[in-house]
């Protein structure tokens, strides 16, 4: 990559101009996001015309900071996270110009919400073993099968789909990646209620759904490679957030200690032990971010997701224990309801009990902690992989159950 000496100034000028022409306080969010995209400040490292300025990704943080300081709306990134956080990166790395032109802008303005269709009832951690079939029919593909754990599917216009296009190949080689219209015939979305009673996730059924071939991403059979790009982005999105000290779960634990805690010494020490572990994780994320920026990423960049999942479970469980017998109640009760648009875009106010229940998913979603430990062990520490019985077998001969 060549260094563009004018990049700093170009990015700064673009931000200044955007904020001047579209003052955040007087601009509708959708209008602002459209203008932000057109100014090349959606993903500043993407090509010009695709929401970027073609500069180094290190400017992303600068843009976010400037916009947040100016009070600009930035919640599209969390509300449309599967699109803006993951799908966009996939389109940038593997899509065509036509695909980028068609999808990126409405994704960024939240006119079109995106979801990700990977996991299946028979393919969780072993996602490459998935069974949803894609059969070519002229200029179209015919899709049959079932996906599960699909966040936001009930609100989505587009889905990132991996399907099996060639069952005679070993499992990693027979996959193809598509963008599917979630509103097209043959796509049926049903909410999947979870232990909190709400439904953040869905089951998605494909019954002869059809996808035009121009919505295929990258080559036929290249689906695994594209899926890997998506998953890497997902794990960064889940584990890599830098947050203020004493915020989130540990902040709620401190609140409970002060307002409802028993005040005993053993509880106090355990709370402080957990606070210290959370602070160590937070400092590690800051260290990872800094090393990434300076171009010397180390192992600390890969531990966040796993560390956070286990710690968050521990902290939320401890918080409920601090409530004493009140912890045996749940103020919200249980009502089966799909997560609404509004509740995803703002920090939801949930009881410690509900946070405790929700945290059980942390070590499952986005790669189970067992898979994350395999990744750390094999990719970071260089330990040998498990022997695999299915690696070279045609997918259709691999035992399933």
């Amino acid at each position, binding site marked *: 990559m060549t260094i563009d000496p004018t990049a700093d100034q170009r990015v700064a000028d673009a931000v200044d101009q955007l904020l001047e022409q579209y003052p955040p306080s007087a601009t509708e969010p959708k209008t602002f996001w459209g203008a932000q995209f057109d100014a090349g400040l959606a993903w500043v490292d993407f090509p010009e015309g695709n929401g970027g300025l073609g500069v180094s990704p290190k400017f992303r943080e600068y843009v976010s900071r400037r916009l947040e300081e100016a009070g600009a709306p930035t919640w599209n990134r969390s509300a449309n996270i599967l699109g803006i956080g993951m799908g966009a990166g996939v389109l940038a790395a593997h899509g065509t110009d036509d695909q980028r032109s068609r999808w990126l802008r409405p994704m960024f303005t939240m006119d079109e919400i995106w979801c990700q269709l990977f996991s299946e009832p028979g393919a969780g951690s072993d996602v490459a073993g998935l069974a949803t079939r894609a059969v070519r029919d002229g200029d179209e593909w015919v899709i049959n099968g079932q996906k599960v754990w699909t966040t936001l599917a009930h609100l989505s216009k587009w889905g990132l789909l991996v399907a099996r296009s060639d069952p005679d190949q070993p499992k990693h080689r027979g996959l193809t990646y598509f963008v599917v219209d979630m509103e097209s015939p043959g796509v049926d979305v049903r909410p999947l209620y979870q232990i909190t009673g709400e439904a953040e996730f869905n089951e998605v059924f494909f019954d002869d759904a059809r996808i035009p071939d121009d919505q295929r991403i990258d080559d036929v059979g290249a689906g695994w490679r594209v899926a890997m790009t998506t998953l890497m982005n997902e794990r960064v999105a889940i584990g890599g957030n830098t947050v203020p000290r004493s915020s989130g779960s540990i902040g709620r634990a401190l609140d409970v200690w002060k307002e409802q805690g028993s005040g005993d010494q053993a509880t106090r020490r355990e709370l*402080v032990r957990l*606070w210290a572990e959370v602070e160590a994780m937070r*400092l590690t994320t800051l260290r990872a971010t800094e090393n990434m920026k300076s171009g010397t990423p180390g*192992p600390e960049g890969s531990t966040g997701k796993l560390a956070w999942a286990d710690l968050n479970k521990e902290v939320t469980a401890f918080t409920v224990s601090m409530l004493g017998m009140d912890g045996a109640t749940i103020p919200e009760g249980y009502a089966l309801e799909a997560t609404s648009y509004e509740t995803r875009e703002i920090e939801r106010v949930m009881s410690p009990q509900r946070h405790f229940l929700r945290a059980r998913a942390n070590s499952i979603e986005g790669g189970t902690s067992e898979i994350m430990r395999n990744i750390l062990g094999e990719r970071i520490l260089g*330990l*040998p*992989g498990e*022997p695999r019985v299915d690696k070279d077998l045609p997918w259709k001969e691999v035992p399933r159950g």
Partner: protein
Amino acid sequence: MVDGVTFVRNEEQTMLADTLADLLGASTDMDRTRQLSLTLDAHDQDVWSALSQMGLVGLALPGEFGGAETTFTDVAIVFEELGRFVAAVPLLSTVSASVAILAAGTESQRAALLPPIAAGTAIATLAVYEDPHGGVDAPSTSAARIDGGWRISGRKRFVTDAPNADLFVVSAVTDDGVRLFAVDAEREGVVVEPVAALDATRPLADVTFDVIVGEDAALSGANGVAPLHRALDVAVVMLAAEQVGVAQRCLEISVDYAKERYQFGRAIGSFQAIKHRCADMLIAVEHARSVAWYAAATLDDPSEAAIAVPLAKSVCSDAAIKVAGDTIQVLGGIGFTWEHDAHLYFKRAKSSSLLFGTVEVHRDRLADAIGV
């Protein structure tokens, strides 16, 4: 960057770590360390001479006293490397004692006491603890004014490197407050009774003082607690950095072994039971590294040190104990033997979690600092 703290080593710091790794690799000998750990006065002269010659003993001291005036972040790099080798050298004792002298002493006391310490020719240590659970603010050791000086009476315990020390920095209560005194080990009335230490590479002793010293031995006025806390904070953070080195080296030993050791026809590192344990060890090491670095970088900022010092004690102690203990488990039977290095690290890890205030003492302190 967080609050002015950078987590990225600069070129000089990387060079310091590399140079030290080479030096310690060449001058330490784990067999010798194992031999030393059968004694009550372990002191690895070869490593100590090498550190002294490189000017590392007085690294953070002002140049006028023979130091190099570096930051504590640099000193922490030295401790991290020493931890990797469980080196039996009195650097922790010497650095913490010299910080006390620097913080409490007059200009002439500093000029007299610090240069030989910085040169590595005088070994100094803090004699400030008396009770296994106690603090340092209210010693029962007393110092009474006598004509021309002080009479110090009392018994100090858990004095690190005492069998090899030339100089003790002793805390004692006086009629108007706690003072620190610099007491020569050779002086009549100083009795060092070495004890068998769990981690014999860091010798411990009880030291009884029934000694008469001159006026110039009193380092501080009656406000000796403040400089003592400063010295102990430095000790705790350097110990935390050392624990990072201990844990890092144990992780390497475990991973290397898991790649080489075959059972059931496979490298044991290919089994998830071993692999996942190693992954958890990696997380512990990386978290410990972050807090030790942060604590070293904020040592000079009192409001932040109140949090960062006990934070480092809490996280790095747990990490080192976990990783060193897990290392014995990954190694299996060989890890339990005297001939393997694992026990040296395991003992260092446990011992370090207890010295200079236990983990619990520091958790209580952290609780106060964050308002819990």
